[in-house]
């Protein structure tokens, strides 16, 4: 999960490294994920989201499809 200055830089990076171009996430979406995962991390009751919760969080921030499904078998899991 890496920062890039622009989509063009991502495309160059994938091309240069022979890597598949995967979904992009905006800064605002990333912030919402950071809050969902970590806002309670230092609390006694905190825990990592389970698969259903993960799907719901991703859907809420507009990240849909098998790429974001933690139990998807579309990528050889």
């Amino acid at each position, binding site marked *: *999960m*890496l*920062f*890039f*200055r*622009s*989509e063009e*830089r*991502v495309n*160059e*990076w*994938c091309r*240069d490294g022979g*890597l*598949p171009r*995967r*979904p*992009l*996430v*905006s*800064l*605002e979406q*990333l*912030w919402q*994920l*950071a*809050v969902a*995962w*970590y*806002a309670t*991390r*230092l609390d*006694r009751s905190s*825990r*990592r989201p389970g698969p259903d919760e*993960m799907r719901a969080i*991703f859907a809420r921030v507009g990240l849909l499809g*098998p*790429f*974001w*499904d*933690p*139990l*998807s*078998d*579309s*990528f*050889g*899991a």
Partner: protein
Amino acid sequence: MPDPDFDTRVKLAIYRHLADTTRAPSLQEVAECVRASSSQVEEGYARLCRNRVLVLESDGVTIRMAPPFSGVATQHRVRVGDKEYFANCAWDALGVPAALHAPGDVLSRCEQSGEPIHLYVHENGPDPEPCVIHFAVPAALWWKDIVYT
């Protein structure tokens, strides 16, 4: 039967040490904090790893990740107050101010050009900045190699 409260105390000892000092505690420091033996803490570490809130080095005792914090230096630095933390990835870089409930500066770089990327993160989110985040690994495979992810 493992005591879930013990694992919670171990987890909190790790995270609070990281939050307070910016560095990962040693096994001995955690053992002293929770008043347990090193072997008991090691067993707690193993359970926390299975619950995906802790990643250890191959020695089984050195903390590599307690997400969003990194136990080793990375390209993602986060300044909060007078402290500077290392984060594991772009997501975790925003996760540090989110976890600490405090504003901070994320200092990272564009992975392709190397251009510095500086984000100012308020308590309600980052200031707008031209950048995008690329997720190279599908969610189902994140923990197959979490260090690469």
